[in-house]
């Protein structure tokens, strides 16, 4: 891991007012909703996917299309090191936002007297942490494929496509189509049910799927970045 690259991406993200505002709204609004609407509980916070996406969008593609990557890779930095640093940077950055959001939710709901138990909160937070690193790996792959913020559009397209396939699978009662839709969903948002693990009944299949999804995405991203030609002459 390259700490300069890791911190560099955070600073880059913090320098973008749009991203900062979106991230701040994402961190603040759901806990406020949870503190106002009794009974909604942790559902108010939803998935951690948006937290990861706001930091991940363009994580590699923006550097490629702007030409910044050329200057970075003229330094003694391996391309694999660059990809993994980007992944970890998005993962850790979104993790911090996740912890802040959950801590805020817990504080506000505790003040109102309806905070979930510490175990529930911990399990929920851990599940979302794993989801964040999973989504960051998927975005690393998509961002290595397409320049600028195209990875976000690609993510949305695959998400919609997966949803349609799942829906068709359900309406036609096709297990194959339904399975494909589920796999697409798992690729876009790899996650593990931490509550199951804490309850002593881990799904080893789910854990293996999660690990293999992340590994595959990162390996493919490294492979693609390794093969990338970085001179504008190649454009």
């Amino acid at each position: 891991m390259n700490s300069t690259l890791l911190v560099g991406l955070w600073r880059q993200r913090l320098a973008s007012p749009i991203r900062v505002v979106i991230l701040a709204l994402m961190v603040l609004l759901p806990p406020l909703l949870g503190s106002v609407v009794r009974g909604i509980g942790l559902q108010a916070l939803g998935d951690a996917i948006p937290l990861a996406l706001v930091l991940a969008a363009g994580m590699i593609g923006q550097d490629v299309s702007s030409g910044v990557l050329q200057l970075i890779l003229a330094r003694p930095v391996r391309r694999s090191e660059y990809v993994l640093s980007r992944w970890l940077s998005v993962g850790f950055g979104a993790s911090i936002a996740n912890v802040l959001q959950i801590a805020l939710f817990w504080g506000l709901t505790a003040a109102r007297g309806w905070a979930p138990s510490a175990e529930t909160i911990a399990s929920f937070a851990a599940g979302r942490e794993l989801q964040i690193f999973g989504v960051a790996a998927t975005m690393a792959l998509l961002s290595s494929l397409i320049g600028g913020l195209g990875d976000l559009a690609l993510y949305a397209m695959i998400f919609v496509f997966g949803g349609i396939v799942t829906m068709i699978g359900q309406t036609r009662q096709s297990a194959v189509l339904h399975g494909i839709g589920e796999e697409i969903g798992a690729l876009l948002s790899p996650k593990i049910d931490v509550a199951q693990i804490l309850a002593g009944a881990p799904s080893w299949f789910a854990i293996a799927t999660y690990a293999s999804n992340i590994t595959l995405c990162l390996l493919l991203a490294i492979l693609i970045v390794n093969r990338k030609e970085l001179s504008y002459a190649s454009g």
Partner: protein
Amino acid sequence: MSIQVQALSKSYRRLLAVEAVRALSEVTLEIHTGEIFGIIGPNGAGKTTFLGCLLGFLTPDSGTIQVDGHAPDDLEVRRVTGYLPERLVLDRWMTGRAFLGYHHALARLPDSTRRSEVDAALEHVGLAADAAARPIHRYSRGMLQRLGLAQALLGNPKYIFLDEPASGVDPAGVVLFRRLLNEVKGRGVTVVINSHQLDQVERVCDRVAFVKGGRVEAVETLAAGATLARVLRVRTLAGALERAGQERIQALARGAGAELADMAAAQARFAVADDDGAARLVAALVAAGVPVIEAAPEESRLERLFLEPPAQAKS
């Protein structure tokens, strides 16, 4: 210790295109340690592709490049390489100082020397302290180019690759650029320059490769005392040359070490060896009473190379 390029070929295959576009064909040359080596050629000649291959940004179809015996993308090579791209794209939210600090860290130079080396680099390229504290998006083109040059010089690299380094730089910046190149040359650094500015290349380069159609058409030595002649065009008052006579003008030229190429009523063209030869010729003409009103080099050596490239490569 040198850069050795052997039978380098590179082509680009466009999406849906039947044939690949050949950018480099069987390029073979050696860039010696401590020399300033220029790459010139018309647009689309393959210069940027060549530089991209030298830096390991592009993968050749065939052939080899060795920098100190290593592949160009070897981390050992990267550690001693500085690079200034033509299209300098920076994280524009950073300040100049933060940008150099970032690259100092990426170059894996010691943390303990970061502040002092960054400040020294900024001073070296003439970026004042207040400019260094300013976000890059408020820099002029010339300031950006200076910052890019400072970035390329960080850590005293052994190899420096410059892609159009004087592009957009003001005259003071051009002078500074030449001074910096002379400094790094004095330290034995090998510099490779890709540039369209032939006069700049001619002033700083020891040797230059003329690239055309993906091939190295010629490698010329430009060091002081090079035998390549340049053409000096001399204008006089109307009829002065005719009155002096062609034989006398020829004799005056030969006496000054020049050669009369052709002559008209108020203009003559001479082949001179260098700037000193041109000065001697003008002095001789004036001393002989020829009323010279203008003397100007018709074209530089490299301009001539551009206009009439040699048929075969030589090294």
